[in-house]
């Protein structure tokens, strides 16, 4: 995993899968309860009107200001997941 792969959640495209690596302390406590914590796999499903991510079998809607406080690591083969 190279450092270039580390991006903001808002930089992903719908369908992209990624590993959550960092959340700012501001949103950490709230998102923790939804099962979001560093190390888990997530998938971005939609960007508008709200961001929606999938984590395990849960779909979670987030507004932009929350999504922008989440950093993820994308695997190299993400291009395969679009569809």
């Amino acid at each position, binding site marked *: 995993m190279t450092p270039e792969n580390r991006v903001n959640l808002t930089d992903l495209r719908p369908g992209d899968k990624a590993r959550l690596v960092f959340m700012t302390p501001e949103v950490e406590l709230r998102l923790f309860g939804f099962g979001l914590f560093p190390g*888990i796999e997530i998938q971005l499903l*939609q960007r508008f009107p*709200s961001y929606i991510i999938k984590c*395990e079998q*849960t*779909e979670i809607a987030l507004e932009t200001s*929350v999504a922008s406080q989440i950093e993820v690591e994308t695997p190299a083969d993400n291009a395969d997941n679009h569809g």
Partner: protein
Amino acid sequence: MLSLQVTERQVVPRKVVLVGNPNVGKSAVFSRLTSRYVTISNYPGTTVDLFRGRMSIQGREYEFVDTPGIQALHAQSEDERVTSDVLKHEQPDLILQVADGKNLRRTLLLTAQLSKLKRPLVLALNMKDECDERGIQIDTNALSERIGVPVVQTTAITGEGFQDVIRHLESRDFCLLNGHPPSEWVEEILQSVRVEEEEDDAWAKTRTNLFSGAVILGALIHLENYLGAWLGLPTLYSLLTGGLPAGEGLGASAQEAFALVCAFLLPVLLPFLLALRLDTRFNDRFGIWSRKFLTGIPILIVALSLVYQMVGNLGAQILVDILENGLFGGYITPALRAVVPAGLVQDFLLGEYGAISVGLTYGIAIVLPVVASFFIAFSFLEDSGYLPRLAVLSDRLFRMMGLNGKAFLPMILGLGCVTMATMTTRILNSKKERLIATVLLALGVPCSAQLGVILGIITGISPLATAIIFGTVLVQLFVVGLVFSHLIPGKRSDFVLEIPPIRYPQWRNIAQKTGLRVKWFLKEALPLFVLGTIILFLLDRLSLLGYLIAGVRPIVTGLLELPAKTATVFFLGFLRRDYGAAGLFDMARSGLLSTQQIVVSLTVMTLFVPCIANFFIVIREQGFRNAFLITAFISCYAIAVGAVLNVAIKAVGLAL
């Protein structure tokens, strides 16, 4: 008040507290264990208060406590605080953690936190049916060994696995997680999670496409029934109503109902229900469509129009006609008139302000059919999982009003009953949001009965007049929200909401829920209807009503230019807003109101003060000072908006 004791004995029962993430089925499990029905829906935040039930199982006494869902032990909203208080102060003998088996990691995060409480714990992984559907297999024995407490898999809606739950109710085991969140070993527990997409199954794809096509076609037929009527094109509805021989009286109502169901309801509902039932891939697809903007808006339009057909036409027109003119007008009133001698008693029961001719007739013949048909439609929406998707679509709008999309849930619940919805504002995360939502609910969200009666009135007036009424109310909600968001100190919270899967609703649950709500209406609202009528009757007899009407005459006839009788209707509106609306309905039908007066009076009635029940709930949730300020503000504001609207319509010279 909310506790109900199923059996009563002098033994100290073992206290079992049901805890878990939102929308995992705690209430369904509770209902199974206690044989007591509590409202179950498919969105987070259905339960905002505690429910208790005692039950004797295999000779042992238990007290079960159903709690609002929590994300973590540390409470972030009022409803979560209710749960964390119970855990802290009530010393449960057993914590029964109910969880969604599909989300094991998230479940164990909460388990780890609960383990810090040092109470015996049992973990029930609910929704086994959905796990099976998705090929998620959980090694419960391995998990149980790992965390040190019994783990069972359940399906609350069918009762699967409950023998195991009951077997472990006496468990004294403590959780070994000790606050440590789960790690890599979760992978071992989760066996053979099937890959999500089975690309190769061509038939399954075709089937989903066929179902989708049928639903879209049905929606188009549904919409064509409207457009065709405006454009003068042939429609299914006109074919059905034109092709049938003309009926009379109740026969005509039945025919109308038949045409309505065939033309508007069946084309969409039938394929949609079949698809939901038979094809889980369709459910997922519909779930995606309804939360995206481009597809979500058309779906919303069709859904609204279906509810309108069901409540506004089938309920408010046809059923009301059958009950009011058929049952009351045709049998009850004439029969009583024949029995009761003319005079004071007859006036009391059957006169202008008669307890039966007005109070009961309004309640049972006008409002009840509307409420019942609305509750059926609404329960369906609740259980399908559609509502949280509307929260996603409306988030940006709500953010401008100092709220976020989560506030959509109490707002839409307000259409069911503003009083209940005011309690649901507890799911909002900040004090500021709760206050704004409470004001908006009291100001402009009509309750189902009122809405239905309004729909009943406006089917008789032009689309333009309808648009003015709803437009004014929505704009007022928006403006007041916008202003309050700047006036009230504090911050709105960020929008984070779990979106449950789309599910085929359980008919039994819809029937139970509707029954419960209708019963509640009969118990809470009907006595107020009769009481209000009796007060009016007494005021009338004591010749005080004239003074009262004269007192508010400058406002009602002067400012709003409405008939003086409207004053009594507004008074009834304070007891129950739907009762007031029913009064307007009656006046409009009798030709006492011009179209402009209908528009003005309906707008004022919708914005007008909350009913008494809501007033008391606002006091409970917000304190007396806030409740008083809210009511004072809304009264003045509603009248001001009505006056401005009246002047504006005249000034522009709109032909309604």
